[in-house]
């Protein structure tokens, strides 16, 4: 029988000095649905364009249906693929350290979360960076591979 595309929870029973422990893995296939503004943002990425949503004087990136105050956003606005690092952090991961940045793109009010591929000694708040686009155009946040030195 083929592996079903349904959730599974395997179980291993461990005997410990403190009693039994059940090691289980819950594995659930979710299917998330993007709404209109998020669809536009993601499909824009496939065309190497970054879209935000206008909210009063602000431009919110990624494009989204609601502003932080709960009001509905207005038109979609294209912002630059260059911007400035608002904050950065480096975390250890199994494959080596990964650096994340909050990047305020040119023309945007709010920062975007993404990975930074910048030499450690150059990392700084205020650093100018640009998107390095992935080779494959996909409607996904991974259409941007990382942000690199501008």
């Amino acid at each position, binding site marked *: *029988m083929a*592996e*079903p595309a*349904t*959730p*599974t*929870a*395997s*179980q291993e*029973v*461990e*005997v410990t000095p*403190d*009693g*039994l*422990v*059940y*090691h*289980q*893995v*819950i*594995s*659930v*296939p*979710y*299917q*998330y*649905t*993007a709404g*209109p503004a*998020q*669809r*536009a943002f*993601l*499909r824009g990425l*496939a*065309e190497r364009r970054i879209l935000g949503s206008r909210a009063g004087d602000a431009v919110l990136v990624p494009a989204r249906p609601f502003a932080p105050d709960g009001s509905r956003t207005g038109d979609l606005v294209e912002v630059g693929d260059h911007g400035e690092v608002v904050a950065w952090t480096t975390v250890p991961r199994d494959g080596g350290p990964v650096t994340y940045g909050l990047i305020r793109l040119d023309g945007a009010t709010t920062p975007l979360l993404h990975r930074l591929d910048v030499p450690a000694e150059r990392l700084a708040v205020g650093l100018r960076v640009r998107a390095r686009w992935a080779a494959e*155009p*996909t*409607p*996904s946040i991974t259409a941007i591979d990382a942000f690199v030195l501008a």
Partner: protein
Amino acid sequence: MSGVGASADEPLRLPLTVRLPYDYAVGRYGSRFMTALRDEGKFYGTRDPVSGAVLVPPRPINGMTGEHLDEWVEVGPAGTVTGCTIVETPFVDPMTGRQRPIPYGFAFIRLDGADTNIYHFLEASRHEDIRVGMRVEAVFKPRAERVGSLADVICFRTLEP
């Protein structure tokens, strides 16, 4: 996922399978029950000192009375079916990730000496072979295959002719 050139209204979905590992402590009462199931092939419950009720799964407190329970009582391995069905719709066994072959019997079983029921599978898989009130007994895996889980019991089989 639909991609470049899709119309603005065309749905965009993201399949994301989330794997969540957990290390569940079975606990003091649970470990004692599961260890006895594994080693002795026996079921135990805990008795309420005031009401006399024997609760399975065993637990430290009877929520109906607030009494602490520390008297262990052997129950089963025979019992009475208090509710039963033949499942004819596919269900994937979460422990194996594989679909259980249908049809199969499934029941509430009141183990002899207990005042509560446990769920388990029935050996029978035809409607005419099951009924509420039926007497059944546990069918254990061989000792060497038992790990300390309710799945150490394969199923319950009828004690009636």
